[in-house]
């Protein structure tokens, strides 16, 4: 279906009360990426924007909504109307992870699939704008499939081609087309995605470095982490209500439960603590991270977190030939085992 038909369909469904809300992207004040749109007003659906600037992974808004409802003692018969959610390929894999773990019921979703030909990398676009634009006023930024332009008294001057501002994650993307959807925006992406075996070239390239080089790279990165937990709070797979790594979430109420609860980390932000936080989180994402890249995009300090979490995804793929979120019915990888699991890392 064409974008305008989809907007009309969603607006109709909303006004007929068939949908609880529509969650998608819309224009914000930051020209380098779109901001989320959560609305139940049919007239606001017109603002929906399907451009490559809509990068965020919106699944978390569903997880929060479902959890808020489950926390309230609600009457079981209360009928829950589905929520429309705009979903790219990697986001549909994130949805599958949540469905696998029964965190959100499929019937409460009306998935608007958005085939993805690569999204804009907001950090790259902003850096190029900052260095190449004559007048840096952000109101003159224009970004579309052709690239980055500056509006100079009404006329577009190209500053960068699309390749220069596109997110290189697309080269490793296994699912340009959403895996499951109720309606799709436009035509699916025709060309074949990268083969499974070649999808981790970025991790393999990093592994060429010596252990010393690797640690000096990562310890420098971890030393800059300010533990703002944006990587955790924006991650669709980070769906625990009580996080064991950060104190910024729910706490038990009972005093003894508080005493028993172990916090693995204090709020101190030195390299060792930051490293432990990221290692623990990486382990929690093994076989669940779908490489949507939100952690790296949200990180204000520009730490290449996706590379770390994809190293886990690579291990899980190499050892068990499992890719996160490809099949909503599959049993999560870390809840399974089989006899031939490798033991080469162990002392014989």
């Amino acid at each position, binding site marked *: 279906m064409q974008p305008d038909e989809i907007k009309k369909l969603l607006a109709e469904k909303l006004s007929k009360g068939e949908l609880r809300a529509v969650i998608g992207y819309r224009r914000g004040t930051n020209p380098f990426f779109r901001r989320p749109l959560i609305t139940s007003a049919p007239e606001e659906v017109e603002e929906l924007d399907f451009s490559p600037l809509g990068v965020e992974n919106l699944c978390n808004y569903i997880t929060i909504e479902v959890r808020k409802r489950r926390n309230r003692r609600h009457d079981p018969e209360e009928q829950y109307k589905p929520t429309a959610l705009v979903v790219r390929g990697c986001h549909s894999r994130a949805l599958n992870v949540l469905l696998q773990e029964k965190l959100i019921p499929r019937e409460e979703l009306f998935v608007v699939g958005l085939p993805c030909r690569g999204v804009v990398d907001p950090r790259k676009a902003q850096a190029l704008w900052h260095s190449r634009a004559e007048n840096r006023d952000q109101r003159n930024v224009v970004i579309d499939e052709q690239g980055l332009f500056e509006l100079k008294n009404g006329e577009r001057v190209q500053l960068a081609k699309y390749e220069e501002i596109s997110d290189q994650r697309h080269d490793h993307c296994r699912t340009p087309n959403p895996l499951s959807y109720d309606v799709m925006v436009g035509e699916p992406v025709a060309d074949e995605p990268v083969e499974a075996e070649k999808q981790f070239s970025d991790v393999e390239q990093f592994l060429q470095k010596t252990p010393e080089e690797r640690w000096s790279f990562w310890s420098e990165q971890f030393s800059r982490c300010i533990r703002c937990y944006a990587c955790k709070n924006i991650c669709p797979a980070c769906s625990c209500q009580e996080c064991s790594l950060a104190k910024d979430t729910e706490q038990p109420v009972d*005093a*003894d439960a*508080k*005493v028993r609860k172990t916090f693995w980390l204090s709020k101190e932000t030195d390299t060792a603590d930051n490293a432990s936080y990221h290692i623990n989180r990486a382990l929690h994402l093994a076989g669940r991270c779908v490489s949507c890249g939100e952690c790296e995009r949200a990180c204000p300090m520009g730490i290449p977190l996706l590379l770390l979490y994809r190293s886990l995804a690579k291990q899980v793929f190499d050892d068990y030939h499992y890719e996160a979120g490809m099949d909503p019915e599959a049993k999560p990888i870390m809840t399974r085992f089989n006899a031939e699991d490798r033991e080469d890392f162990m002392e014989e």
Partner: protein
Amino acid sequence: MQAKQANPVQEDNPYLPNSVKLLEIKTEVGGPRPIKRLKIEKCFDYRPGQCAMLSLPGVGEVMLAISSSPTRETMEFGIMKAGVATAGLHGLSAGEYIGIRGPYGNGFPLDSWEGKNIVLIGGGIGITPVWSILRYVLDNRDPYGALDFIYGARSSADLCYHEDLDQLRGSKELHLHLSIDVEEPGWKDFTGFVPQNLLEVSPKAEGAVAVTCGPPIMIKFVIKNLIQLGFQPSQIFTTLERRMKCGIGKCGRCNIGDLYVCKDGPVFSYETLQRYPEAME
């Protein structure tokens, strides 16, 4: 070469606790949320209604109302086990050492209450700041008018300081009005919630001040009833509770509007609180 400049050691470090020996620790109330009474020597001067930050090494700090009167040589705290620090304090025994810093907060404006009748209304653990006033007024009785002490809890077993309460029953220095929420055999005093007990006692508003501390729901209804009895908002005082870390109005977390509960409070008149929507949530 960076020129290092020796700086004088900073004497008045408001965050640095002093260590103090625990004289006595007594269980006042049992049950799921037990209350214990802690006694230490008096480490600094203070006014009724002020608080102190008790610090347990390796566990953390907790801000508590000082429940004893400044006229006494020892300081007392009533501690309900609710979090990690209070649970730690409950685990202590006499003779162990804890850290203490303070006093913090504004305390009750007692000197402006001279010549007035005082109505104290406490509920559950809310007794601690009110108890400090009661003891202080009893220790120098004559500047103040009539003294009514209305205090209630869920059951008789939940009443704090019950030995001291029994001693006060006969005293002519004050009118004692105890209550428990639920019917109990052998209970001779009022049965029902504290706000209803207040209406029973119905103290005259004229020339009086009222102080109420306890769970937020109780404070809301007590204030409603006090207004009904003719008390002006400026005659009604309460203490508010917020999470606190620094105690000196810097760490930013205990604010109600532009007021910091730890520094501009915890004692507020209802007249002040009416201007802050966030206060009485």
